[in-house]
Structures are given as C-alpha cells and as structure tokens.
C-alpha cells in the first residue's frame, strides 16, 4: 500500500477514524487530523463523530 523512504514495501492501511474509508496517500491533503481522535477523511466525519459522542453523553 505504501512505500517507505528506503523503498521497502509496507503493508499499511490508513482508515478514517469515523467512517472507516481507506485513505490513500494522494488524499492526505484533504484529510482532517484531530488530536487524540485520529485522521478523518472529511470535515463531515469529524462533525458526525462529535455529534455521536454528544448523543452518547446525553443518553448516559
């Protein structure tokens, strides 16, 4: 999936912390990193995960 700087093959799959979509290296510029939460493929996923947590807190 990815090549390390030394050219060796690395079997590594990076997925969105919310929806689970595979994130390709070419897509990294459009991703959103949230400290402590991980890498998200879009702002929509950041917002959705936040709302889900809020609902969970309200429900508990």
């Amino acid at each position, binding site marked *: 999936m990815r090549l390390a700087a030394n050219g060796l093959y690395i079997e590594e*799959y990076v997925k969105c912390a919310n*929806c689970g*979509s*595979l994130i390709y290296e070419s897509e990294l510029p459009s991703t959103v990193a949230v400290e402590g939460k991980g890498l998200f493929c879009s702002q929509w996923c950041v917002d*959705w995960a936040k709302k889900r947590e809020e609902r969970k807190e309200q429900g508990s």
Partner: protein
Amino acid sequence: MDPVMMKVLDSTMVSICREMGIVLMQTSYSTIFNEALDFSCAIANRDGDMIACAEFCPAQIGGMPLMAKSVVKEIPLDQIYEGDVILHNDPYRGGLHTPEHTLFKPIFVDDEIRGFAVSIGHIAEVGGMVPGGFCGEATEIFHEGLRIPPVKIVSKGKDNEDIWRLMLANVRTPRYNFGDLRALISAVDLGERRMKEIYEKYGVDAVDQTCNDLMDYSERRMRAEIKQIPDGIYPFEDVVEDDGIEDRQYKIFVEVHKDGDDIVADFTGSAKQAKGPINATLGVTMSATYNALLHMTDPTIPKNSGCFRPIRVVAPAGTVVNVDFPAPEVGGNTETHPRIAGTVIGALAQVIPHLSMAAEGCTHGNFVFGGVHADTKEFFACYDIEVVGWGGRSFADGNDACDSINGNCRVTPVEVFEARYPWRVEDWVFREDSAGAGKHRGGVGYTKTLTCLNDEIIISQMTDRHKTQPWGLNGGLPGGMGATLFMKSGSSEWQTAVQAYNKNSPSKFSNISIVKGDRVQLVMPAGGGYGAPPDRDPEAVREDVAEGYVSADAARDIYGQRGADK
C-alpha cells in the same frame, strides 16, 4: 437533460450488461458461473462510478463502485492503455472477499478513456487452506487464498504471462481458473466493443452528458423515496452466531439516521473484528446497506452510483463490519452481508413496516469441497451455493428456497451436480413446519442429503443460523434453523461437525475428510413470519398443509385452524 435519450441509453447499456453476462455464463468452465450465475457485469465511467448494470448479484453490484474507485486510485488513468485488462480481488482495497475477482477493461474513444467495462465473478477455487475458498477456520487472510491488488493481466491486448503463471500456480484447479478468467475477460471485451459502438453512434459528448444526467436522475428518485420515510434515528441489532474459532456471538448493530432526503447508516457499536472469517470488508457493508435500501424503495429506479449518493455508511475500522488487515473475511460477503442488510431493514421496519420483511435464512450454505476425481485423476473443487427461506412481508409470504438476498444465484441442478462431482444426491425436500408462522409465513427451508462416491472428498463450510433463528416481524414467529449433519459409512447416527469431527462450530469448519459411503445432510434455514399467525387466511393454511409445508398439528396449535388436513 433529454429524457428520451436518457431512457434509450439506459436501456441499451443494461442490455449490454445482460449480453456480457450471457457470454460469461456460456463460456465459463465452473458450475458456480454457468449454473449458479454468481457473477455481475456493469459499465463504469472514468471516475469509477457505476453507470449501468443488469439483474445480477446485489452484493457485487453494490460493491462494484468502491472497487472501481480503488482501481483508478492505484493505477492512474495515464498509465492505463487501450487493450489493458485489470484484475482486482483485494478485500482491503475495496474488494468484497478473496474469491470475488473483478476485471476492468478501459473503453477508449479518440485515444481517451471514457469508462470501463466491468465483470465480477466468484472464482470457485483460490488456493489457501481449503479447496473451494471458504475456510471456516481461517484466522488470517493468507489462509483464504491468493490476494491480488489491482494488476494488469492483459497489457495492450497481450496476456501478461508472468501474472497468469503466478496466479495459476497458486490454485488447485488451474485449468478451470484459466477458463473462468477467460470468460470474465470475454465479458469485458464485449462490453468495451458495445460501448464503443454507442459512442460512435451518439457521440462522446452526448453519451457522457446523458450518463451524468442518468445518475442525477437516479439520485433524485432515491431522494424522493427516502423523503417519504419519517425523520428519526432507528436502531436495530442482530448477531452472527459464532466465527468458527470461538463459541460466542458477534453483534451487528446499526443506527439508521433519516434526515430529510439523506440516510446515514452508522454501525458504531458493532462487535470488534472476529478471529474467524465472518468479518465484512467496508465494500461489503456499503453494498449491504445499499441492498437493504434498494429492497425497500421503488425497484424501477435505474441502478447506478447516483442512487447510492443519498446513502452514507459509517463502519468503524477493526470491527466485524470493516475488517482490518490481516484478519480473515471470506464469510463477510456471504453470511455477514445479509445480516447487515437485515439490520437496516429491521431498523426501518419500525417506521415503514409495509416495505419491510422478516429475517431470511441469511446464508448461502457455502458448502465447498474438492479432491482428486477417481475417473479423471484431475483435482476438482466446487463452491456449492445452497438457498434459504426468505422473510414474510406485509403483503406476501417469503419466497421458498431462494438464494439469500445478496446473491440472486441459482441452485445447481441435481443432474449437473451429480455429473460434475462424485456425489449422489439422495434427496432434496422441503421441510415441514420450518417456515416462521405468520399472517404471511416465512419461506420454507429444505434438506439435501448427499452420499460420497469418491475415495475421498475434502469438505469445508462457512454458514450460519445453526444456533440462532431468523427473526419474525410484527408478531410473526422465527423461522427454523439450519444444520449440517454427517453419517459415517456403516453408522446410522447423524452427528454435527462438533460431535463427529471435534470442530469448534457446527456451521463453520475446514478440511473434513469424507470417504466413499459417508453421507452429508445440509439442512437450510427458513424465513421468519410477518404478522400474527391467527390472522393468516384459513385457505392459505389449508393449502400449506396440502403442500406439506405446514403440519396439521401446527395448523391447529399455531394458526388455530381446526380440521386442516392433507
């Protein structure tokens, strides 16, 4: 938008896909293709969006767009040439499971890629731990056969022989795999040729614009359907009964969020991924969600990527609904898919019960076997699809003995099965009182009994619903469970795989050696019922008793119908 042109082009492209399927069926070697029809054909645009498909396997149709998009991400368009054929089966790159081989052939017009002809087929033998691909005891992807990221097996019209040799050296039935892959290539060859004729007839701009209009139209139709569902959050859950390794249930949980004309299916809360091969890939979970929505909306909506746009899927990584490398996954596409689709249907049944159905058998049986044929001395392998009863609906009984909702495949006829493989089929009978009772009963399950005629056959299975019943809906009762039973030569006792072979699970096991005279009985689950049984039309109960679907005792005790008799 030109609606006449759109309708003409849609119908034409669907016809092309059907013709691709006929070529595939007629030229393939294995019964999984030419009898069971476990394949799909489609046309995609250059971005990987599906623009047309025909009436093939819902699992493959819903999963195709993600696979196509992964191909164009991994092989840039400027590195794809006319005459190339790309092969892809990688479950971690958008694929569905290892046996599902997908072929893409670019459609070039005026030296530019306009789209792809696509064929997807379940190759029966893929190497790995067991003959037939379904290893019920796999604990890593490497047990499940050869994994192929997007590669060119044909480059500029010429076979990439190194790739072919590598692939065929890693399977037990190279002659059959070669023939089946050739059939898949024939299908995309035809699709490419037909689409070029379409481009020549109508012009590039007209075809491309109309395809975009067509996807927009499907999106509008799907949004209009979704809009009629009341807004809200609807949870539902079901389980996979075990994973073949540990004797415990794995929860599939969904919250369906309906807001305006959008739907989000959020599977957060589903079980962590299993050690055994029940895990679904992301492509499977997306496909299963689309499948559920397509079952509950207007069937005349053109099936393309447009109708999937209003539907978002949230499937956390590392769970049974989005497997992480290198966990096994072969059963995710067959057993977990219908469970996922069922949870979405079950969730929405709370607000649109008239469009819902009770649980179906939710398995394809996945009875796989192989060995060296005594007559030909050649290794054979078979993926045998078995079918189930479907769930009852608000307006009709469930379908009797029909492939689970993600497959749309046929049963291999007994005569063909016996001619191709060294088994005698002793019986194939509907099971009395298997259907979940209800105002509209579930579809009936059945029993198939086989006797081994070869010196040895190695069998494996990856099925479910041996411990958990398909649920009923709105007062309907659950459907009957399945079972797989063994009677060794000289014995008169039926035993499960746990009892006879010390396996962990009765429904998921690997590499059981069967010898001449041994018998195997496949008991397939039935569908759950819909509505309270006493509300069933008495004439329908009498007919069921006459057909042998319902016993006189059940007619009296469950349906309250006295005097119903054969």
